[in-house]
């Protein structure tokens, strides 16, 4: 049975995301998709959803949502003090929702991005093979008051609820971001390499779904490259000596040297950070045969 969530208050930035838009990067279309893959996947699995079902990604300050018909939801990832009809609820647990129920959020207590999954996934419209919202492509680019989000109303009986699933939240507290050397890493001199690995970087105010800029600058002896491919997790060194960590909505090509590349765990960790939090890079090596 078709049902809808009405947005009563929008909060800071919430978007519908899934695994991302694949097959269109060659046309310059960003991949998009959830910023913290681990939290989003777990959030879906708790309800027995497909791990890539469309989910609501909530940033820092959550929205206030009214559900038209019964379903089951779970919230996972950052802890933004979720409430059901005004009563605090826990992360990573399935909750039955009844008609006219209201989900809202309080203060940001832990991490930065929370995910809200609904039984069967959000039934919002798909553009170029994905439900992920992206400005200019999808009808909406962020949650706004009055928007309606569609879902199929199902009762718990029909779901495959997996309440025992254990969510390990260590990465949310960790300040260690795992990276591989990027394509231009070898062009840095020893001093520069040491400098990057020894610096504690502060996340700047300029952080969004496209990129996180880091505050500390360094001397940059590298020349720009001829425009080459980039992807989520690529760390560019700008001509001004700033590190730019590309995130899920990043462009598909770029001309700054690509000095590091975050792995998925590193992406999940940084996706849970807010401005003024600190991170360090931890260099990994590709497993040798």
């Amino acid at each position, binding site marked *: 049975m078709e049902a809808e969530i009405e947005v009563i208050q929008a909060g800071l930035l919430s978007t519908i995301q899934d695994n991302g838009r*694949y097959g269109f990067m060659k046309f310059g*279309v960003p991949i998009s998709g959830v910023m913290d893959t681990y939290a989003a996947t777990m959030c879906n699995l708790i309800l027995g959803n497909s791990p890539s079902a469309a989910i609501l990604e909530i940033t820092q300050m959550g929205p206030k949502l009214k559900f038209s018909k019964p379903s089951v939801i779970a919230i996972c990832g950052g802890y933004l003090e979720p409430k059901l009809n005004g009563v605090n609820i826990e992360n990573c647990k399935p909750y039955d929702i009844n008609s006219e129920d209201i989900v809202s959020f309080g203060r940001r207590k832990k991490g930065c991005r929370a995910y809200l999954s609904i039984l069967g996934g959000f039934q919002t419209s798909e553009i170029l093979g994905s439900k992920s919202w992206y400005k*200019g492509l999808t009808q909406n680019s962020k949650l706004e008051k009055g928007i309606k989000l569609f879902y199929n109303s199902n009762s718990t009986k029909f779901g495959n609820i997996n309440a025992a699933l254990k969510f390990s939240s260590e990465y949310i507290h960790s300040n260690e971001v795992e990276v591989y050397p990027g394509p231009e890493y070898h062009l840095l001199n020893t001093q520069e390499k040491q400098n990057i690995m020894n610096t504690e970087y502060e996340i700047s105010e300029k952080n969004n779904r496209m990129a996180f800029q880091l505050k500390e600058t360094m001397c940059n002896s590298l020349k720009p*490259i001829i425009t080459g491919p980039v992807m989520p997790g690529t760390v560019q060194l700008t001509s001004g000596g700033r590190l730019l960590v590309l995130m899920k909505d990043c*462009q598909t090509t770029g001309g700054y040297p690509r000095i590091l590349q975050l792995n998925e765990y590193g992406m999940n960790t940084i996706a849970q950070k807010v401005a003024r939090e600190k991170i360090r890079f931890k260099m990994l090596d590709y497993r040798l045969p």
Partner: protein
Amino acid sequence: MKQELPHIRPLSERAILIEFEENIKEDILKIVLYHKNRIENFYIKEKVEVTNTYNSLLIIYIYNIEDVYSEIFALKALISEANITNKLHNKLFNIPVCYDPEFGLDLVLISKSKNLSVEEIISIHTTPVYTVYFIGFLPGFPYLGGLDERLYISRKNEPRLEVKKGAVGIGEKQTGIYPISSPGGWQIIGNSPVDLFDKKVVPPCQIMPGDKVKFYAVSKAKYLEILEQKKRGKFQLKTFFYGS
């Protein structure tokens, strides 16, 4: 065609980067696109996506690569056994551009710094057959090579906060068209009324790497007429087959 083996390396746990000689040349693009096609066919049943730039191929896997070294080994074998002899047969797109001062925001600046009249700039810009190297930066933004060196000009020091949809610009040695409104740093010389990106169709972009583009100048009146035709679904972009 002479072929040097490219550099193949993992970019992350789900991507492999292949880099050919670092140069902006059509011969290199041909090699890149030849291998792109072979890799796409090689992986036809797998969940991968292959993109290219001037001299690079990026293979993105939807899931983590199980064994990156055996994957690289297979790619090396595939690339080294290739025999690039066939010519590329591509499309030529004839694209109308209105160089009216209303759209050509930087024509006067270029005219002064290059000591060329506006008419000369238009004539120089509409003469070459440009090569599409890749689509990047924005959905549907074609990077075109083959600009006459008299029009080489650096990007703006401060990018404009909004460049209009359809704006035709020059950045260093490249020219291109903004398919959607966006912030942008290129010098703007005109505007094209055609749509280069349509999210409602697959593929959303008709122009592909390796294709050719030629611009022709249209008056403001003709520009508005094309916009009208487009609304009524009566405008068709002129394309031709182009062998190179």
